[in-house]
């Protein structure tokens, strides 16, 4: 009896020491998780997740204060990536359907040169100056739609990106026959 108690106690002590040592030896500084999450976010800085930019959302997800399905431009692919990264279950998108990617286009005839959209753009994708016409650099526009609201003459419109045969993707094949009746999740 005594031997059994002693043996268990010794084992417990040994393993406890081992765990404690490992915790100290392999401790990581900083918050690499937020960095990893930020690295996979689409960086549109649109705020549609409810946070003022991608980095704050990444930090909130790392602290487990936000769900992984709130990013609209990231779409389903991002939900799956985050689910994989964090070991969580994928969730359907909070926003519902994925919106097709679009670019902002300024109607030059209507623009009054007020620079409000330039200040609103989080990636400086609009060139122009006070009283000069503004225009969007299509290659840098992320489609975040933050410039639409400030424009006083509502001259900015979102134009969906036309599919090009070079960027066309083969569609995901239809699911096997025996999964017919079940609606697809994620």
């Amino acid at each position, binding site marked *: 009896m005594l031997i059994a108690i002693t043996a268990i106690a010794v084992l417990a002590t040994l393993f406890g020491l081992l765990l404690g040592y490992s915790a100290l030896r392999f401790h990581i500084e900083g918050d690499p998780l937020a960095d990893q999450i930020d690295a996979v976010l689409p960086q549109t800085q649109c705020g549609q997740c409810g946070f003022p930019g991608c980095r704050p959302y990444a930090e909130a997800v790392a602290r487990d204060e936000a769900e992984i399905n709130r990013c609209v431009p990231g779409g389903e692919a991002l939900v799956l990536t985050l689910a994989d990264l964090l070991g969580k279950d994928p969730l359907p998108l909070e926003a519902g359907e994925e919106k097709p990617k679009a670019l902002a286009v300024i109607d030059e005839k209507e623009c009054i040169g007020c620079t409000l959209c330039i200040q609103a753009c989080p990636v400086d994708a609009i060139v122009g100056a006070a009283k000069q016409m503004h225009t969007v650099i299509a290659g840098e526009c992320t489609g975040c739609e933050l410039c639409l609201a400030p424009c006083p003459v509502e001259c900015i419109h979102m134009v969906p990106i036309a599919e090009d045969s070079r960027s066309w993707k*083969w*569609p995901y*094949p*239809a699911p096997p*026959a*025996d*999964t*017919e*009746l*079940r609606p697809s999740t994620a």
Partner: protein
Amino acid sequence: MAGIILSSPHTIRPNRVDWLMLQVILALIPGIFALIWYFGWGVAINLVLASLFAVLVEAAALKLRGRPPLTTLRDLSALVTAMLFAIAVPPTLPWWLTLMGMVFAIGVTKQLYGGLGYNPFNPAMAGYVFLLVSYPLAMTNWLPPHMLAEHSLGFLDSARLIFTGSPPHELGWDAISMATPLDEMRTQLAQNRMIEEIRASQLWGDFGGRGWEWVGNWFLLGGLFLLWRRVISWHIPVSMLLGLLLIAGFFWSLDPQTHPFPAFHVFSGGTILGAFFIATDPVTSCTTRKGQIIFGASIGVLIFVIRTWGGYPDAVAFAVLLMNIAAPTIDYYTQPRVFGHGKGSE
């Protein structure tokens, strides 16, 4: 923009799952006839019962999962499971045990995991082992082959045995049942008899028990048919039989009086059935070639080990299930060298 996109190849694709399963069923038929010939109608009744129960259980499971039942039933995999199960169990098995076996095999081992292609364990063997462990007595009530039997059971007697559990009037269980050769060999060896002595009895044929060994041959015929039709490849059967023969031969050479001749192992019990029909189940075995050889050889070795030193007389089911667990790991470590990678290219 195109409608539904059909991907290449745009050809006739001759291979089909139900065709594969049908060929397996065809290959089983010679062995089944041999079993019925030697051991009576109980085998046939069990086959019919097991097939019926398997189809019903699968249909019920599919309905519960919200899947279309006909599409899956049409691939005939439930039938194959049922037939293998019915061949493995004694011809005296009560009907409700067959039902339980099928519920466990199809419902739990196969459908709970996601249906065909998703089960990690061989369903027929899982059902068999489930019953063996839970109802050892019922699962070891074997009949002797007809030429050795004092009282053979007719069709009605067999049916009554299976459905009511009681042997015919005037006969008790002892009168109609007999141990299998493997069981017999095991008990005798445990009593420290010599092999020569044991084999002197009338029960023994050339290699295994009289009658029993011939059943193996008919299954071998079926297995060769499958090889010829390329339904299975030679790697698993050959490696399994070789593995068994080599280790049995090694121990036999050490002491021929306490270890039976290696061919005994091959022609007794479910070895040949296991080599060609059970271990080669594609869903639960390895997929890479090297992996298949390791898989098969390990099953052979395990069969010998369990039969000689383990707790049950026949070991095929246990050996197969144990290796089913290891199959994914073996696959992972035996991946072939991809064209253009590693040695062979710069």
